[in-house]
């Protein structure tokens, strides 16, 4: 069917009223997801967008694919449930930094251990927007955004580092105002064979008055740059950084390099691909070792009943093992 051929980014948009604040960094991510879906020519009926809670989680209502807006922090378990039951689907998870790094922290770590073939996009703005601007796990220690009574008392978690430690096999970071670059990252993340994690720096214009679009753009540093803004965000690939693990012997080296890069912050903030390793088995392949027909006939599509509702699971052998035969 030609459907997939003619799809444009706007074909992945619903008519649901978008209630994000004007200037929200989420718009850039929404747009790039739609662009990436169009570029990959993905059939909307084969895509599940899954989200957590908060502003970022509303994303799925604005995208014309299956959209599962879950509970606070639970985006990854639900997304993995969808993918595990039907590995033929394309699953993209989206969620906020509080959702993923705070209340969903355990899921974040364990998703890495599984390495399912899916992408998780983190909307990273340092605040809990929908509850009016509390500090999120990615806000740096000592930073006082506008709703805070005092400077942030907690150290920030480093999503890139945490993703690497957890076992994500593709780790990237994008910036929501660099749309083309971000779109490319999303395309790569979806294409990656394994669990891809994409941290997206996404200014919250309402509650984060520190890490603003202007701040990322380095407008405050124009004086030192001959009157032109000196952006803080720079591209890894522009500096020849090679994130790819070409063979298994390079895992330690490439992971160390990625960790090193992930520590950069402040005047220079790297975006791009930090790490890519396709030498780790995916969870689906591990399942297939035990259940040979897993991909051919995954749980979601198995027939369980005949035309008259008769159960098709044959318990004969199992019951046989539990049977005491006549003496």
């Amino acid at each position, binding site marked *: 069917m030609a459907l997939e051929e003619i799809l444009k980014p706007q074909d992945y948009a619903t008519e*649901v009223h978008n209630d994000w604040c004007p200037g929200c960094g989420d718009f850039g991510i929404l747009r790039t997801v739609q662009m990436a879906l169009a570029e990959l020519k993905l059939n*909307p*009926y*084969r895509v*599940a967008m*899954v989200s957590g809670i908060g502003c970022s989680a509303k994303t799925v*209502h604005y995208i014309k*694919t*299956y*959209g*599962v*807006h*879950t*509970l606070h922090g*639970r985006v*990854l*378990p*639900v997304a993995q*449930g*969808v993918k*595990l*039951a*039907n590995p*033929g689907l394309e699953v993209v998870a989206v969620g906020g930094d509080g959702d993923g790094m705070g209340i969903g922290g355990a*899921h974040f*770590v*364990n998703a890495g251990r599984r390495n399912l073939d899916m992408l998780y996009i983190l909307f990273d703005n340092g605040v809990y927007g929908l509850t009016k601007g509390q500090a999120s796990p990615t806000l740096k220690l000592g930073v006082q955004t506008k709703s805070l009574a005092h400077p942030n008392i907690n150290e920030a978690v480093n999503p890139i580092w945490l993703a690497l430690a957890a076992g994500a096999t593709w780790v990237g970071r994008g910036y929501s105002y660099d749309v083309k670059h971000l779109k490319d990252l999303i395309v790569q993340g979806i294409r990656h064979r394994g669990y891809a994690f994409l941290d997206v720096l996404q200014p919250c214009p309402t509650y984060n008055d520190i890490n603003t679009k202007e701040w990322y753009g380095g407008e405050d540093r124009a004086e030192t740059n001959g009157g032109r803004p000196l952006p803080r965000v720079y591209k890894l690939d522009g500096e020849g950084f090679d994130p790819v693990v070409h063979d298994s012997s390079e895992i330690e080296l490439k992971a160390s390099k990625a960790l090193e890069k992930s520590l950069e912050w402040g005047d220079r903030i790297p975006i791009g691909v930090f790490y890519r390793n396709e030498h780790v088995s995916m969870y689906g392949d591990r*399942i297939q070792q035990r*259940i*040979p*027909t*897993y991909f*051919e*006939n*995954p*749980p*979601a*599509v*198995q*027939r*369980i*009943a005949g*035309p*008259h*509702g*008769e*159960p*098709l*699971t*044959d*318990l*004969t*052998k*199992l019951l046989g093992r*539990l*049977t*005491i*035969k*006549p*003496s």
Partner: protein
Amino acid sequence: MTGKPSKVNDLSWMIGGPQGSGVDSSANAFARACAHGGLNVFGKREYYSNIKGEHSYFTVRAVTGTVRSHIDETHLLATFDAETAFRHIREVTDDGAIVYDSGLGKTKISGIPTIEHRLEDELKTYLIARGLGETLDDMLASAKQRGVTLVPIPYSDLLTQVADEFKVDALSKIARMINMLAVGASFGILRFDFDTIVKALDDVFRAKIAVVKMNASAARKAYDLAASLAPDFGYRLERMPRKEPRLFLSGSQATALGKLYGGLRVQTYYPITPASDESEFLESNEVLDLKMPEEADSEFVKEKGASVLVVQTEDEISSVTMACGAALTGARAATATSGPGFCLMMEGIGYSSINEIPLVITLYQRAGPSTGMPTRHEQGDLRFALHAGHGESPRILLASGDFEEMIRDGVHSLNFAERYQMPVIHLVDKALANNSGTIPVPDLSDLKIDRGSLVTQADGYSPENPYKRFDLRNGPISARAVIGQHGTLFWNTGDEHDEFGHITEDPGLRNLMMEKREAKLQLAAKEIPDPLKYHYFGPNDAETVIVSWGSTKGAILDALDRLHAEKQSVGFLQLRLLNPFPSEAVMAHLAKAKRRVDVEMNFSGQLGGLIRERTGVDCTHQVVKYNGRPMSSTEVYDAVLRIILGKAEKRTVLTLGA
């Protein structure tokens, strides 16, 4: 006991020992041997939350007829450590016997660190009152005083003989076999056909011939010695010819079998006692066999293998939400847990309810609150399961009372979840999970898969007539599409939603959606047939009616048999469907009874309260137990008889069990 007990094929046997010493496998061998000999068995397992060293024990009832529960008395106590003898010897009937290690006589109570101080003091007081000291010999002497037969077995000598025979260089390599010596000795005293033991060993050791041979030889030695030491023991087991095959299984296996038969395809879980056994059984049997449908079907030939995917998650929040994700794709999905894990699942239940996601949670209740007693029994979660989660979220509660119901309810739960598109909590408990026994091979041919209202390609959705997941036009149940089904995009959210599944806060829509979800529950109340709502046993005009739910069923039915044999007018209303609540049936069976006895394994009588709430009917008496040990039929019999005779207070608290 009233009347003279039948001493042939009516036995209560117990074996105990430190955890990790093979108590379970010896009990398994004993019970299987009885079953191979044509007897029916019921096994009850008690253990500490511990890996090695603490005391565990197993009781097996072996009878000719039907047996569904344990009794308080032990006729034959098989031990191979001193602790078991100290703990349980007082439970042995005067005409009973104890098998023990003849080398342990000098062991003192105070020398056993795993005996609690409270019990130590109690045992010392018991012995002092009889003018005895505090060694095992003293304890045995106290038993002998009242007629108990003592059967001393020199385990170490017998093991040496086995080691010589099979050329084993170190005794420690076969020390574990001591448990089979205890089994052999037991059957020797009981004069049971030795061939059945060999068959049982075949089962237990799965045809590892050398192991079977060595264990059989060991058991034979103990068998012969014990038979010569107690030639006149009053209890006997005799082979019963049987034509029909029977199942020998545990409750955990029963539930797993039911879920498989019901088409379960994804099970998520986080390790927790006593629920994990079910998931482990499923995982061990993840590749399934398929059978042909009744009618030849061209599509079926293409079906490539069946399987159940079992996923161990990072926590129970993940288990329940991952199962929701799987269910959204059309797979029948479930999770199994116990109280502490169920606590973490609340948000998933609400999510499943508001999104009308078919979800089954098998809830193995255990003693709470908090961590409580992880390996001990309770029915303390009825109110919890009913109300778990914030807001008002319809769910179905179904409670099983025995192995066959556990199998059947595995299927029914999955059916209800899809038919009514809501969470189903299948209530079972520690006792049901860990009990084992024989049952007739159940006829499951009446069980069908009911997937409820599903979207088909023929429904012809189009941009002009788009699919609406929560369509309000055709009654409370909307046709369900699954993720990946062409032409049927939908959305889900934990927020209140419109017909497409998008967020809404519109007051009118909110009302419609709340009413839709509640109406499904009313529909379930109307449609679910009576036998799934309740069972009633006994005369319809009984003066005394017992009402209960779940695993007390076995003890109550066994007690009921005795009460009926004594011409007492007693009935038993076993409630199966606890939400929606079968108020009419409860009214019909309870309202007219002179005495209404609520029997439950919890402190407050949760079902009694629920009955009062839903029907206005008050139970006149309450029999409860909350010490973590399941009710015996003896306890139920005694309590109900006292109530009938007007000798009981309004509330009876049962306290037996070690």
